[in-house]
């Protein structure tokens, strides 16, 4: 009798242990991420009234392929001079950590980067350097990824308007046509230079049309050194960026010299027209 009782007890105990073991090993699907980067964003300048939000973004590659290839932090407090942030990330190397500003009723715009880890700022300009961050394992916190950010860069109180005319056949692999205002003339083919020297980009230019209008928001009293039409292929890869036309200096008889534009604060400068001749570009 006792042996039957013992056998039953042992069997039930074994069964319970098995169930408990199974419960411990049970697959719960998604798991918390324990590795992260943390740091402080130091803001310079005043935030524009049109500010919607500011976040720290991380990209595995630079330039990021598109907005979907960015990892965003929570919103950070841009109203204070400094803001702490943290982003939980799986282990790996992240090429760039940046601060991105967003305007009310507008999409995220990569030209609204206001600070980059490893870079520095000079007034409303970003110095084109950046540092990558490596998270060695899934339990590591990488601290002090501190970033200087300039809200002056997006404090745009003046506008440049113009018309862009297209000559020749559009390349079949056209993805995006944009117009950009630059603080210096970027080195052709150096997408980093396009990225860091841009003041503002208007990505809303329709493609496969004969002409379109554009509008750029810039800082009043600052000289825009270069206004260019920019082509991106249909993979939307920023590395494919090409300038296919630019605003020419009206005083230059050769028609080759880029024109600079100075707009007073709260003013609109019109007639900054650009011609794009696709037959003269190197796009395949």
């Amino acid at each position, binding site marked *: 009798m006792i042996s039957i009782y013992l056998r039953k007890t042992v069997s039930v105990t074994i069964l319970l242990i098995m169930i408990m073991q199974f419960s411990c090993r049970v697959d719960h699907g998604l798991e918390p991420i324990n590795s992260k980067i943390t740091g402080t964003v130091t803001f310079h300048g005043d935030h524009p009234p049109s500010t919607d939000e500011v976040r720290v973004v991380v990209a595995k590659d630079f330039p990021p392929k598109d907005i*979907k290839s960015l990892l965003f932090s929570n919103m950070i407090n841009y109203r204070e001079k400094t803001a702490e942030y943290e982003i939980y990330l799986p282990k790996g190397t992240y090429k760039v950590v940046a601060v991105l500003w967003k305007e009310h009723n507008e999409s995220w715009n990569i030209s609204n980067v206001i600070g980059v880890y490893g870079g520095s700022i000079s007034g409303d300009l970003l110095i084109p350097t950046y540092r990558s961050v490596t998270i060695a394992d899934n339990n590591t916190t990488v601290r002090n990824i501190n970033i200087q950010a300039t809200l002056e860069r997006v404090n745009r109180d003046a506008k440049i308007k113009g018309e862009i005319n297209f000559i020749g056949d559009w390349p079949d692999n056209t993805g995006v046509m944009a117009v950009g205002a630059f603080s210096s003339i970027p080195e052709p083919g150096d997408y980093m230079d396009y990225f860091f020297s841009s003041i503002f980009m208007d990505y809303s230019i329709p493609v496969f049309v004969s002409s379109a209008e554009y509008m750029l928001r810039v800082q009043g009293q600052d000289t825009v050194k270069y206004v260019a039409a920019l082509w991106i292929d249909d993979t939307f890869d920023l590395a494919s960026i090409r300038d296919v036309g630019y605003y020419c200096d009206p005083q230059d008889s050769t028609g080759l010299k880029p024109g600079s534009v100075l707009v007073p604060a709260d003013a609109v400068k019109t007639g900054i027209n650009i011609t794009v001749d696709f037959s003269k570009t190197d796009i395949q």
Partner: protein
Amino acid sequence: MIMMIKNISKLYIILLFQLFFYANLLSQHHGTMRGKVVENKNDQPIFGVNILIKGTLIGTSTDREGRFEIKDIPPGIYAIFVSHIGYKNKTLDQVTITSGSDIEMNITLKESVVEMNPVIVSATKHPQSLSSSHQAVEVIPHTRINESQYSRLYKSLSTVPGIHFNEQNISIRGSSGYSVFNVGSRILVMIDGIPVNSSDLGAINWDILPVLDIKRIEIVKGAGSALYGSSAMGGVVNIITKEPPGDRQILLRTRAGIYDQPAYKEWEWTDEVLHFEDINASYSSSFGPVDLNLSFSRYLSTGYMENNHMDRWNAALRMKTAFKNKSHLDLYASWANSREGGIIQWLNQNSPFEVPPFNKEDEIEFTTINIALQYSLPLSSTLGLKFRTSFLSSYMSNQLTAYNPGAFQPAYGPGAEIQCLWLPNKKNQITCGTEYRADISSTEYFGDHKGYSSALYVQDEIPVIPSIKATLGFRIDKHVLDNESVASQFSPKAGVNVQIFPGTTMRSTAGRGFRAATVFEKFVTADYAGFNIIPNPDLKPERSWFWDIGIIQEFFDNSNFQLSYFYSEYSNMIEPVIDFLGTIQFQNRLQARIQGIEFSEKFFLFSELLGLESTFTLLDPVNVTTGKTLPYRPRFSANCIASLRLKKFLFQAEYKYFSRIEEVEINPLDPRVPGKLLHVRAHYTLGKVIIQAAVTNCFNYHFTYVERRMAEVRKFSLGILFNSAQ
């Protein structure tokens, strides 16, 4: 709009009166058939049994005493088809009716857990047995909805092979991915054959009616545009409501439960006990010639995550009255209102049950009013007419984060349909009709728009030889929006049903599907989760061709398996396209090809003591333009339900699996895992009361259907179902 409704009403009243008197003149006195339907075990009468005289439009159903009577049957030799949910159906052959005869029949039906061959109406718009359908149709009876113990209707549908839900977005055979608020659904949802997709968003409100009102749900897989037009591109879900029983009956169902904490300590976000409560009541009675059913339900939930609360009310009225000329008038009116938290995305993966501070107060309100009036008029045993008028008002406020209650107005969708069913000879069965629906919408997000759609459809079922039945049909649709024709479509369909051997059926269908873009997709301007949505007024209708073939094999009259192959090609597919900056626009961007295999089996052993029902779906959804997998569509999904029935006790375990979603649109870098869910349920019947208990998501498995929105955690529930007529 009021003028439009008045005009439609006038036209219908005149037509109804004319046909009512015409039908009276036509009614003749031939033979009569009456009798009683009882259970084989205990001779208990069965209420609501369908009795159809094959080859005619004549039919009835039994009363509370199990009795039925059919008068004015033309002389002839007939087969009588008897069916009821929960019983094996029966065909009585060679029943002879002579002039002046009065036949008394006593019919016994055997109880069955699963009806293998129920009566359906959605494949052809008239009653037929499931095995004679040319199109793939699945039926979910109300018993299965009760057994599954889900608080929300759409979850009961996810056990059907080929159906996948991304939250509340239904996809039949990979037809749909995910769109916010279910916008532009490619599945047409109907209540008793009347469309209820909203007029502005083309969206589905799954909470439109109290669950106790549902008799069964029929799901037609593959394009249904040849009968149902736009929105039926990927299939049709037809919710058939219960007819009032004709005498007093009270149904009560109440359930309460709690949500568990997440599986990981670091994800716990509140010390409060998160809970939900659900109460449903239904009262039926008879007032003179009018049978009436009133229903009510309330669902309250704290939600399983932050700002996930829900407070939902439903009320519905069903009235039915039969006239001496065998015509009958049906009214179904339902009202639904819900207020729920508006979650766009989680705070972050380490706080996935919390929302960002600026979303904490977001709330969405849905109000839907649906009124449908149907008049069925049998003019003779071979000719019948149906008139339907309906009115749908759907209001969804405050959805796009900015708190702006005045931004939305209700969208209105008044509609009408005249349908004719004609059996010109012993062979052909012709269904034809005309349909009209207006769509009127107004919001700050996409402006004021008025449109209408009108259609004409014809379908003929032709028995080529007794074992082969062909179906041919087409529908012509015209869509007008803001006085401009935006779509005209000819949608043909051909199908065949072959009884290869007794118990072995093969069926195949090919046809056209189409969907006109909704007002939302064309004109919306909004901001969603930091992404700008911009309008595209040039959006064209999307179109598809589809073909499928399937075989059904029955075993021992309570088990079967089905195997199907399906293939669809979509052109100008409308999908939200996100550009590299994150601007969203609905575009005719895609050419797509979706093919797959479905397998399902129902197997019952030892007098249905043990049951195993499984479904498997393999899907190959390809964007032909890019070669990539279409987003939000799992390549493999499976569902298995094992049940044990011991007299008054039922135990069920359900396991659901779907493979990792390969492609998503907004946050492709986020980790994703396959879906693995185990639910266990128990029922105990105690007289008129059924006690229910369930554990949903037993392993507390965490996954996302859509990026950054965690699916429901484990929950425990207890419920009671009371039926005064049990």
